[in-house]
C-alpha cells in the first residue's frame, strides 16, 4: 500500500496516472490563483453557485449526446453544456445582486439550489431513457479520475495551462480590482468588465475541475488554498503564488493517494489534503496562526505583569497577584518572601524612569505615540533614537529622590 503510494508520488505508476496527477495539479494551481482574487474580493462562495449550476447543463448535454450518439459521455460536449448553464447561473447571481434588494448570499443560495434541483429533475429523466454511460454522470457529483481517458486528461491539463497563463497576464488588473475598485475606475479601468473577467476565469476553473473533484467539491479548491495562503503572507502576489503552490500540492497528494486503492474517490482526497494544509497554516503560521497568537498574547501578558510589578516595587506597594510575584521571583527581583532584592530595586527604578519618559513622550508627541503599538511596554531605547531620548530626559521634571 505504501509502496503503491510511493510509486504514485514519484510518477512511476504508469503514464496515464502521471498525466492525471499533473492535470489535477495544474488545475488546482489555477483554482488557487483565481480563488485568491475572489477571496480578496470577498465573494468566496460565488464559486459554490457556479459549480452547482453546472448540473442542468451537464445533464442536458448528456441527454442530447445520448439521444444523438447513443452514449452521453463526451467530455467536450459535457463541459460546454456545463459552462453554458454555469454562465446563466452566474449571470443570474450578478443580476439579482445588482437589480434587487436581495443580498449576494440569497442570490447564491437561490441559484445554486434551483439549478441543482433542475439538474436532478433532468437526471431522473435520463434514468428513464436507455442511454449508455449513465453511471458516468454521477462521477461528476463527487469526481472520478480513475477511469479517465487519456484524451480527457490531456484536455483538462491543456485547459489548466491556458488558465494559468491567462491569470499571469491579467494578475495586476485583477489585483487592482480586488483592493480598490474605485481607484481602478478613476484610472480608466472598466471594473465591470474586470469583474466579469474574474468570474469567467473562476467559471472556467470550476467547469474544468468538475471531472476531477466533482461539482460539489470543486468549490473547495477555489477557497481552501487561498485561505491557507492568507495565513502566511500579507503581500497579495505572494499570497496568489502560495495559493497556487498549496493547491498544486493538494492535487498531487490527493490524486496519488486515490491511486493507492481501487475505488478511493479523488475529489474528497484532494479536498482533505487541502484542508490538512489549511489546518497546518491555521495552527502554526508564524504571522496569524493560532499558536503564534497565543504565544504573543502570553508574552504581552507577562510584560504587562512584570512592568506593573516593578512599578509597584518602586512605589513600595504590596503585590498580591500570583503571576506577577512568580515573574518577579523568576527574574530575581524579589525574594521568596516577597521582599525586593537590590537588583529588583534597581530594575524598579529603571521601569519607573522608562514609564516617565513614555508619559512625557505621549504628552509631547501625541500623534506619533498613537502610531506605536503598545507604546510604553517596549523599551524606549528600541523605539526612539538616543538624541530624542536625551532631549526627553532633559525635559523630565526632577523626581523626589533626585531632589
Amino acid at each position, binding site marked *: 500500500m505504501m509502496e503503491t503510494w510511493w510509486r504514485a508520488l514519484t510518477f512511476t505508476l504508469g503514464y496515464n496516472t502521471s498525466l492525471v496527477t499533473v492535470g489535477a495539479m495544474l488545475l488546482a494551481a489555477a483554482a488557487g490563483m483565481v480563488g485568491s482574487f475572489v*477571496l480578496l474580493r*470577498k*465573494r*468566496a*462562495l460565488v*464559486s*459554490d453557485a457556479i459549480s452547482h449550476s453546472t448540473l442542468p447543463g451537464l445533464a442536458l448535454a448528456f441527454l442530447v449526446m445520448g439521444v444523438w450518439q447513443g452514449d452521453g459521455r463526451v467530455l467536450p460536449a459535457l463541459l460546454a453544456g456545463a459552462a453554458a448553464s454555469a454562465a446563466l447561473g452566474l449571470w443570474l447571481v450578478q443580476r*439579482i445582486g*445588482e*437589480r*434587487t*434588494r*436581495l*443580498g449576494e*448570499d*440569497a442570490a*447564491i*443560495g*437561490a*441559484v*445554486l*439550489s*434551483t*439549478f*441543482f*434541483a*433542475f*439538474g*436532478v*429533475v433532468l*437526471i*431522473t*429523466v435520463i434514468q428513464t431513457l436507455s442511454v449508455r454511460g449513465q453511471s458516468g454522470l*454521477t462521477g461528476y*457529483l*463527487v469526481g472520478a479520475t480513475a477511469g479517465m481517458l487519456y484524451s480527457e486528461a490531456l484536455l483538462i491539463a491543456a485547459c489548466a495551462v491556458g488558465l494559468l497563463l491567462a491569470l499571469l497576464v491579467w494578475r495586476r488588473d485583477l489585483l487592482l480590482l480586488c483592493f480598490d475598485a474605485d481607484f481602478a475606475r478613476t484610472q480608466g479601468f472598466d471594473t465591470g468588465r474586470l469583474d466579469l473577467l474574474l468570474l469567467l476565469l473562476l467559471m472556467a476553473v470550476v467547469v474544468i475541475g468538475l471531472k476531477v473533484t466533482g461539482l*460539489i*467539491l470543486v*468549490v*473547495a479548491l477555489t*477557497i*481552501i488554498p*487561498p*485561505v491557507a495562503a*492568507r*495565513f502566511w503572507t500579507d503581500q497579495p502576489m505572494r499570497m496568489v503564488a502560495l495559493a497556487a503552490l498549496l493547491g498544486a500540492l493538494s492535487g498531487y497528494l490527493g490524486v496519488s493517494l486515490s491511486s493507492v486503492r481501487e*475505488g*478511493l*474517490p479523488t*475529489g*474528497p*482526497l484532494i*479536498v*482533505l489534503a487541502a*484542508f490538512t494544509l*489549511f489546518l497546518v497554516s*491555521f495552527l502554526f503560521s508564524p504571522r*496569524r496562526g*493560532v499558536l503564534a*497568537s497565543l504565544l504573543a498574547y502570553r508574552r504581552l501578558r507577562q510584560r504587562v505583569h512584570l512592568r506593573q510589578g516593578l512599578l509597584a516595587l518602586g512605589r513600595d506597594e504590596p503585590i498580591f497577584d500570583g503571576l506577577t510575584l512568580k515573574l518577579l521571583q523568576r527574574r530575581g527581583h524579589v525574594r521568596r518572601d516577597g521582599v525586593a532584592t537590590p537588583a529588583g530595586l534597581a530594575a524598579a527604578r529603571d521601569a519607573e524612569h522608562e514609564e516617565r519618559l513614555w508619559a512625557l513622550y505621549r504628552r509631547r508627541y501625541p500623534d506619533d505615540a498613537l502610531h506605536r503599538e503598545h507604546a510604553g511596554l517596549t523599551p524606549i531605547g528600541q523605539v526612539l533614537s538616543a538624541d530624542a531620548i536625551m532631549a526627553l530626559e532633559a525635559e523630565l521634571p526632577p523626581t523626589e529622590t533626585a531632589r
Partner: protein
Amino acid sequence: MNEFMMFSLVPLTVAIIISMTCALLGNFLVLRRQSLIGDAISHVALPGIVVSFLITGTLASLAMMLGAGVAALVTVVLIELIRRLGRVEGSAAMGVVFTSLFALGVLLLEWHGAGGVHLDVEHALYGNLESLIWFEGSSLGALFDPVALADLPPQLGRAAWGGLVVVAFVVVMRRPLVLASFDPDFAASMRARPALVDLLLVTLVAVAAIAAFEAVGSIIVIAMFVCPAAAARLMTNRLGAQIAWSQGFAVAAAVVGYLLAGEAPRWLGFEVSLSAAGMIATVAGLILLAACLFGPCRARTGSAQHR
C-alpha cells in the same frame, strides 16, 4: 382518489410541512444575510449520518438525526473558530468547513461502500419523497381509523414535530429574533442577547434541515430556506406580511412542484415520474424569478444604488 391517498397524500403533506418550516426560518436568514448557513448545514448532514452509521452500525432514524445534529453543531463551532481565531472572512470560513466535512463524508462512504449499505450520496442529495407510501390509506375512512393512522410513514411525524418546534421557537422568541435580525448592536444594548439568538436560530435551522433531510434530501432544504423568503422579501416591506407571503410561496411550490413531477410527464405521453424534490425546488426558484421581475418591492431603496 384511493390511489391519491395511498401514494400522494403523505409525500405531499410532508413536502408542504417541510417547505413551510424551512421558509419560516428562511425569512430571518435572508434578512440577516446568512442564507448560506442552511446550505452549509444541509451539506454536513451527510458526514454526520455516515459517522453515526459507522459508530452505531444502524440506519435507525434517531441515530441518523443525532449524527446530523452533532455535525451541524460541529460545523457552526468550527466556522466561528476559524472566523475569530484565524481572522478569516465569514463566508470563506464557511466554505472551508462545509466542503471539507462533506469530503470526509464522501470518503468514509466510499471507503465502506463495499459493505452494500443502503446509503449513497445521491440519496442524501435528492431525498426519497416518492417512497413515503401509506399502505393502509385505501379510502377516506382511513383518515379516522387509528389502525390505519398508525401505519403512516414515520417521516411525517418527524417533519411535523420539527415544524412545531420551529413555529414555537419563532412565536416565543419573535421579539429578540426580530431585534437581532435588524439591529444586533441595538439588541445587545437592550440586553436581548443577539449572540444567544444567533446560536438558537442556527440550532433551529439544523433541526429543520435534519427533519427534512431524510424525507426530501438536502437540495430542497436549501431551496426552501432561500427561495420563498427571498421572493417574499421582494413583495412587501413589512415582516409580518413577508412571513405570510413566504408561507404562501412555500405551499404553492410544494403543491405545484409535486403535481408537476408526477403528472407533467404523463401529459407529454411518458409513463415516468420525475424527482419530486427537485421539481419542488425548481418551482420555488421560478417563483423567486417571477418576484425578481415583477415584485412590487424588488428595487433597493435609498441612494445606495449599485452601479
